[in-house]
């Protein structure tokens, strides 16, 4: 028997085992997936929890439900990968040998990496994050109880999962306070290590002017050194006081990646950006957020790259060259408040541009422009995620980005 071992049954890992179980002969291939938790969280839903839009039940389901027959789901914590011996050691002493390994354990928020964030006495009192389920639930209470003062939305450093999420949170907070008739009692500030609202120029300009229109102050090039009680302090000694801080802590790959000598300074696995094969080992791939590819850490990237990976993997295990080439395709809905959203569609080489998607000229979605249809698309995506995406069923969107329907000049 040949053995495929997948670490992490999140978005990427679950898609991979579903797709490959159908394509790899059951007599010839054993597929195992390891995860430390028995619950699967719909992470895009975290954004809505602080505003009371989603309840906990809507975004959490049992992990086993999404793992197909013929795939072993092992619950356990990875201690380390021993790439020389082609095996994975679990914390409880179990050993899992493999012929091919897929690392899909993503990234997670690490508030302990910024002095004063976790240990300054304000964590979960006036400092919150919404990149964990518990954090999002705790923040919902804090938002409800907030009736005036300075709300600061903050990113420690890039890259982060879903780079538009902090912007979306800011837009939704603005709308939320307006609906509660208290927007004039809240000072909203968006603090980013980037030189603008977003990483790519055209989208940054559009999203930046949306912040201006909503009277949201923006502090750019702000790299936080520490948090002093209720003040953010940057390396160049700027200070931003807050009453309520919503921060996105440093996002890092899993600790075992570092222990196994497989990661860079953020515990991300260096891979070829077109095939996702680890640079150091010919039988290890890293999919989803766990790799160092210069693309957004987003479910859409995981989805499109898994499509390319699946075909490549089938060739790779037959010792044939991998002919598929992932282009960094991402597309993300950006909630803007009041039941509207934008959509952005881009890849390694092409920044988000205005236009229509997926059908040129028709849509129904508008690119880089607010619409109600985009918002409904974002909400409908939750159903697609559970029912089509995770089970690896076909979704009628091409894996590679297309220029059709996009307008390079506004």
């Amino acid at each position, binding site marked *: 028997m040949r053995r495929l071992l997948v670490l992490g049954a999140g978005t990427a890992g679950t898609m991979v085992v579903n797709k490959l179980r159908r394509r790899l002969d059951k007599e010839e291939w054993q597929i195992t997936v390891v995860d430390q938790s028995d619950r699967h969280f719909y992470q895009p839903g975290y954004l809505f929890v602080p505003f009371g839009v989603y309840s906990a039940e809507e975004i959490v389901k049992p992990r086993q439900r999404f793992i197909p027959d013929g795939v072993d789901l092992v619950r356990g914590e990875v201690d380390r990968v021993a790439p020389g011996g082609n095996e994975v050691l679990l914390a409880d002493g179990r050993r899992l040998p493999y012929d091919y390994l897929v690392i899909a354990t993503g990234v997670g928020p690490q508030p302990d990496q910024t002095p004063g964030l976790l240990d300054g006495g304000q964590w979960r009192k006036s400092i919150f994050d919404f990149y964990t389920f518990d954090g999002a639930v705790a923040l919902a209470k804090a938002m409800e109880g907030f009736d005036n003062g300075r709300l600061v939305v903050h990113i420690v*450093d*890039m*890259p982060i999962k879903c*780079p538009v999420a902090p912007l979306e949170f800011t837009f939704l907070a603005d709308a939320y306070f307006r609906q509660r008739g208290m927007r004039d009692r809240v000072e909203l500030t968006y603090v980013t290590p*980037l*030189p603008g609202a977003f*990483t*790519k120029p055209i989208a940054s300009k559009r999203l930046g002017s949306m912040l201006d229109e909503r009277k949201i102050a923006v502090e750019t*090039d702000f*790299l936080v*050194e520490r948090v002093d009680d209720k003040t953010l302090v940057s*390396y*160049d000694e700027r200070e931003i006081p807050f009453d309520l801080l919503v921060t996105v802590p440093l996002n890092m790959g899993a600790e075992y990646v570092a222990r196994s000598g497989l990661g*860079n*300074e*953020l515990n991300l696995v*260096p891979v070829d950006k077109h095939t996702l094969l680890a640079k150091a080992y010919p039988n290890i791939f890293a999919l989803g957020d766990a790799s160092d590819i*210069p*693309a*957004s850490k987003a479910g859409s990237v995981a989805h499109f790259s898994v499509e390319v990976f699946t075909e490549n993997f089938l060739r790779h295990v037959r010792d044939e060259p991998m002919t598929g080439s992932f282009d960094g395709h991402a597309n993300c809905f950006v909630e803007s408040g009041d039941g509207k959203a934008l959509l952005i569609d881009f890849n390694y080489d092409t920044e988000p541009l205005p236009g229509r998607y997926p059908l040129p000229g028709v849509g129904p979605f508008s690119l880089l422009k607010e619409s109600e249809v985009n918002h409904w698309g974002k909400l409908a995506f939750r159903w697609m995620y559970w029912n089509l995406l995770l089970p690896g069923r076909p979704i009628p969107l091409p894996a590679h980005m297309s220029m059709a329907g996009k307008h390079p000049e506004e």
Partner: protein
Amino acid sequence: MPVTTIAGRDVHVDEEGFLTVYDEWDEDLAKQLAAQIGIDLTDAHWKAIRFLRDDYRTKGETATLRRVTVVGGIPTKELFTLFPKKPAKKMAYIAGLPKPHGCV
């Protein structure tokens, strides 16, 4: 790619003035590039610049600030003192490397 003349030599640069050809750089050029953005290079500056050059040669991309700190061993605070305001961008500029794309 546009070509510009720095220190009496023709070099290839992008639209923001970052060198695009690794081997067109040398230490004399670095001094000129640093002077253009108001930086006088000391030993401490050179330590960072040399780390960036070496790291790029093996990794094929410009190190982020975090990488210079974690792998290169130079505290971030010091980098902000040496290359004020935008250390990642300024270091890459002087080291003749592409602007770090970091982020997405």
